[in-house]
């Protein structure tokens, strides 16, 4: 819904009635993820998309019907459904789309929170008596919606009264990149693609410049360990230690291992890694904690250039955060 918030704000300001169609679930492959929205105004204007074109015409019809006074509805489009051929969803996947009116007063609080980087979620009842009921969920709220928001996840929650769809607008998770090296710029770029808020931190001011890092969210001149002591870290946080200089790496890793960060990776050839592990042991870090460090950083895909290393790092981050128990997949 992020992509259409500005349009929704404008429509809300004009007092235009709006229907939104929200992807609330997908099975197998689908072009857009849960939370994607197609918004239709009373004037017939359209913003966003739910499948990238496959079922938009059918969904548009449902939205117009809702705007004309029709009840909220949960529609399923998929190859298994006869309707799929009719509407032309060829993706082999199934999408569940909830269509209903959007109360204009919900738009401003969501847009405001997203702008200011505060977590907020929109909860929509999608089955049962009061399907279409909506409320906003703030951070720290107990219950399943609050838990989803804390993890930054969007999805369906089963409740005794029926299914509830929770669309989380969590601030982007943090990626901290230590070491203002060439690899850092490449890792930062791909980190932004994956939706991270990227900070590059190095104690050496002359390396930490906008010219070298044009597309990172924040540049920090500070010793990485000192920075990390005061930076927010949660299970979604990614920490990449790229300096391969023990005097920066060892203190940074020691602090990183005291946090709940979801991914910690460190660059360096095998000997560097062994020496670093030895120094961490000398600092009293346990074997279990040392095993949390992905080193050498990145999946082994034969990377040579910094940009290729960044791809290997990104692939490893996805793998670790998506399927923490799985062994590393090696390229064939």
């Amino acid at each position, binding site marked *: 819904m992020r992509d259409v918030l500005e349009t929704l704000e404008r429509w809300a300001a004009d007092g235009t009635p709006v229907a939104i169609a929200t992807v609330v679930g997908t099975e*197998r*492959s689908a*072009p*857009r*993820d849960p939370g994607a929205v197609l918004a239709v105004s009373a004037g017939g204007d359209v913003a966003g998309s739910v499948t*990238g*074109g*496959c079922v938009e015409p059918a969904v548009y019809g449902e939205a117009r019907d809702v705007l004309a006074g029709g009840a909220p509805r949960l529609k399923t489009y998929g*190859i298994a459904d006869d309707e799929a051929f009719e509407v032309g969803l*060829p*993706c*082999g*996947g199934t999408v569940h789309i909830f269509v209903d009116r959007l109360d204009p007063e919900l738009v401003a609080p969501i847009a405001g929170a997203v702008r200011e980087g505060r977590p907020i979620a929109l909860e929509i009842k999608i089955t049962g008596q009061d399907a279409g009921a909506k409320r906003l969920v703030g951070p720290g709220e107990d219950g399943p919606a609050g838990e989803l928001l804390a993890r930054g996840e969007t999805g369906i929650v089963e409740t005794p009264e029926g299914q509830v769809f929770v669309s989380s607008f969590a601030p982007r998770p943090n990626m901290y990149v230590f070491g203002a090296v060439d690899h850092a710029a*490449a890792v930062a*770029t*791909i980190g932004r*693609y*994956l*939706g991270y808020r990227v900070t590059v931190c190095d104690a050496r001011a002359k390396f930490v410049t906008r010219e070298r890092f044009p597309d990172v969210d924040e540049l920090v001149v500070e010793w990485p360990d000192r920075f990390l002591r005061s930076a927010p870290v949660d299970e979604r946080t990614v920490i990449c230690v790229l300096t391969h200089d023990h005097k920066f790496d060892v203190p940074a890793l020691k602090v990183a291992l005291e946090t709940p960060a979801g991914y910690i990776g460190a660059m360096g050839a095998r000997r560097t890694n062994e020496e670093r592990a030895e120094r961490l042991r000398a600092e009293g870090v346990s074997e279990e904690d040392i095993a949390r460090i992905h080193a050498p950083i990145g*999946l082994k*895909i*034969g*990377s*040579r*250039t910094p*940009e*290729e290393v*960044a*791809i*290997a790092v*990104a*692939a490893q981050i*996805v*793998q670790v955060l*998506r*399927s923490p128990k*799985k062994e590393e*997949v090696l*390229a*064939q």
Partner: protein
Amino acid sequence: MAAGNMGGRVNSTDVIVEAGRLAAEGKPYVLATVVNVVRPASARRGDRALVLPDGRVSGWIGGACSEPAVVREALRALADGQTRVAQMEGECASEGIVEVLIEPILPAPLLVIVGESPAARTLGELARTVGWRVRDDGVEGADAVVVATMGHGDEDLLAAALGSGAGYIGLVASAKRAGSVLAELRTRGLDEEAVLRIRAPAGLDLGPSSQEEIAVAILAELVAWRHTRREGPLAAPSEAVDPVCGMTVAVGPGTEQTVHEGVTVAFCSAHCRARFEAEPERYSGLRAP
């Protein structure tokens, strides 16, 4: 000027300008730079030249004495993609030692992405950051083809990709749909070996993923594929021994050659060719196979 030269004296700066032009056009070449000289030698440190895949030379790299050997090493470098330092010693009686850095500059691999989907768009953008060339139509000349149409004619596109010579062919699809697409290709009569060349679903298996994550998984697989390919980017050069001086020379359009008793003989220079043509019977025992 030596046999393979494109003609006209090309200075060191022109060589760099020409190198940039070739790189921009996506054409392969070798940049050869003299990095060390033990006198006497006709080359000086910093002399440089370009060597093209057909053996033509642009620039100064020591003239007739070291040039044929540089061309030979350059074409080997184009074939295996490895940068090397070639030491030219005793190639000519008058020469000392000339060390030449041989850098093959190969065009970035070409990725063709067919189809409109968020994963396809992100893949295209990311592949460019890794230095690949990216196109969204026509599989001709592609090193890798990724089909991401979300179902609009995947079978036809994959069949075309299989016939294109692309080394990597991937299909963006769920495991289930990938299975049905491959089954359809089999019923169309494609042999099993061809069907097995298709990576379906494309990309390393990183777990359930968003569109951006699927793009990362595919690009990671492409990087791995690029670096584990066994064959070199260009065919190995054909080489022959100059029957006059005994030097191994690369044979190309620019090579000095003559036909003797129905057999083509190659030389390092016009000088050697003239000597051969004056007394072919004296050198024909050394004739290259």
